[in-house]
């Protein structure tokens, strides 16, 4: 046991790799490098990067929230419906009543309430979050389709309004929403790693029993967690509406898999008790860059998911191996084999 403790600390390379986000940043850099070779036309110019930064913030913000949820050993699959609902509320209030910041506030509030209800269903009905939020995905998703009558809303006039400039404008060519996503990442990082709320989540995910023994109000913290997740999903929904100036009831559904993938590619463990916020940021970027890069490289768009899946497996294995090579059975066996 003393051996592994020693090994974990030896060498500057090991220490560098152990820094949060470093391995996944390397994967990201390698991918960019590959695409620069396969699609030099697109990847040596700035446009494609600006386009990422305009489209990646909504899934990145949701993935940041989901990282906290996974840290607590829970999952939230209802966020696509929350995104759609918030997007609908925002677009409707803008279109019908010319409301901007009030519409923004109302959309966030709707997300917060939906998240709160998720939290209550999970803690008070004692349902596992996987099942509860899957059910809520149907409930909210069905509800928003009914309320909106299944139609889409277009709000082209939102461009040029103050709220658009603040949340989805451009500084030169730089999309402002990317700064909001990074700001969210900083807040979430501090919340998880430096705040007592984050510590509660870490211990809850580690062991619910221990969390109770040490005096953490586990139900209350979980309710707060899902409420925050609802708020962040709603924020993502509004950013999406502002960028695309539309609402449609399937908005958000396309994010379901890529958001979940971003969190786990980033190195957060599904077993709870630990989470990598910086990893999630790169995870979201990797998913986006694969989508754009494959298309730019002339590979059929249908291959995108295939490659995201491959990178998913490689990244998760790498994250585990860097933490402790013996946790990957194949590597453990190889090491044992070479030693003999």
């Amino acid at each position, binding site marked *: 046991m*003393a051996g592994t*403790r020693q090994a974990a600390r030896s060498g500057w390379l090991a220490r560098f790799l152990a820094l949060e986000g470093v391995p996944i940043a390397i994967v990201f850099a390698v991918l960019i490098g590959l695409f620069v070779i396969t699609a030099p036309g697109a990847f040596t110019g700035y446009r494609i990067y600006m386009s990422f930064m305009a489209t990646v913030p909504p899934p990145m913000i949701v993935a940041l929230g989901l990282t906290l949820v996974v840290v607590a050993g829970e999952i939230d699959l209802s966020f696509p419906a929350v995104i759609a609902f918030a997007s609908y509320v925002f677009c409707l209030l803008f279109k019908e009543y010319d409301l901007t910041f009030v519409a923004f506030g109302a959309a966030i509030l709707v997300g917060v309430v939906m998240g709160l209800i998720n939290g209550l269903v999970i803690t008070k009905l004692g349902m596992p979050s996987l099942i509860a939020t899957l059910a809520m995905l149907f409930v909210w998703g069905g509800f928003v389709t009914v309320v909106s009558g299944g139609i889409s809303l277009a709000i082209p006039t939102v461009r040029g309004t103050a709220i658009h400039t603040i949340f989805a404008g451009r500084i030169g060519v730089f999309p402002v929403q990317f700064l909001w996503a990074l700001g969210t990442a900083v807040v979430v990082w501090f919340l998880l790693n430096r705040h007592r709320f984050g510590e509660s989540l870490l*211990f809850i995910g580690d062991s619910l029993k221990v969390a109770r023994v040490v005096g953490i109000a586990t139900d209350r913290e979980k309710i707060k967690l899902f409420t925050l997740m609802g708020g962040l999903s709603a924020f993502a929904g509004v950013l999406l509406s502002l960028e695309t100036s539309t609402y449609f009831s399937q908005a958000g559904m396309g994010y379901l898999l890529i958001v979940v993938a971003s969190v786990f590619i980033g190195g957060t463990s599904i077993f709870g008790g630990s989470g990598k916020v910086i990893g999630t940021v790169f995870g979201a970027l990797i998913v986006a860059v694969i989508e754009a890069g494959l298309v730019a490289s002339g590979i059929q768009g249908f291959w995108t998911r295939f490659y995201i899946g491959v990178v998913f497996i490689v990244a998760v294995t790498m994250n585990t191996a860097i933490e402790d090579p013996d946790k990957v059975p194949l590597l453990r066996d190889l090491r044992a084999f070479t030693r003999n």
Partner: protein
Amino acid sequence: MTAPPIVRLENVTKSYGKVESLRGVTLDIGANEIVGLIGDNGAGKSTLIKILTGVERPTSGSITIKGEKINAGSYSVREAQKLRIETVYQESSLGEKQPLWRNFFVGRPITNRFGFINVKAQREAAEHIMRTTIGFRGVGIDVNTPVSSLSGGERQGVAIGRAMYFESDLIVLDEPTVALAIKEVQKVLDFIRSIKAGGRTCIYIEHNIHHVHEVCDRLIVLDRGKVALDVPTSDMTYAELTEFLMSLHAPARNTA
């Protein structure tokens, strides 16, 4: 004994329906002593501890803590913690994947008014506890080590160190050496001695009477809900203690 006892129980009984778990227990736990609590399964050890630490309320009898009579109706775990009584459970009080600096302070972290944790202060305090209070030395552990890479004995040390840091006057150890290797058991016994050296009191619940005899100042044997023996350890050799415990079982064996 000059100082008033930390805890005094008088005629405490506890029934669960028709089952009488404690049948009139009277005992004192003095300041700065290590008291070994011995007894078979079902003797009432855990009931006694639950009453002492506020988890359960007695059916009758009185509890006096540091000279103050406790209102049994409102006594709770929280109340017990305020009176500086802490229980260190066998498992289940440490977060496996979390570093020691979090484990020492979880539940009562050092924070600013916005709830942000002062990590530097916690690391330093944890470092201090490890070096001085529980004496972890040169074993490749630092405050960033997760609990999962600690041995069973070291984990007990962390839990005991935590209780001592928070100035507990009475630390209750519930079978801390179960499932530990011999070398590890010695470490835990050393941690128990450090409780006394730190001026605190300890109730040590244990099956293995050898360990109890080795570290305790006083021995209390519970048998079927009553105190069967309450003597200073120096009055009884290990052999005599074994013989006494065997004699408790003798009649039961005959009727069986």
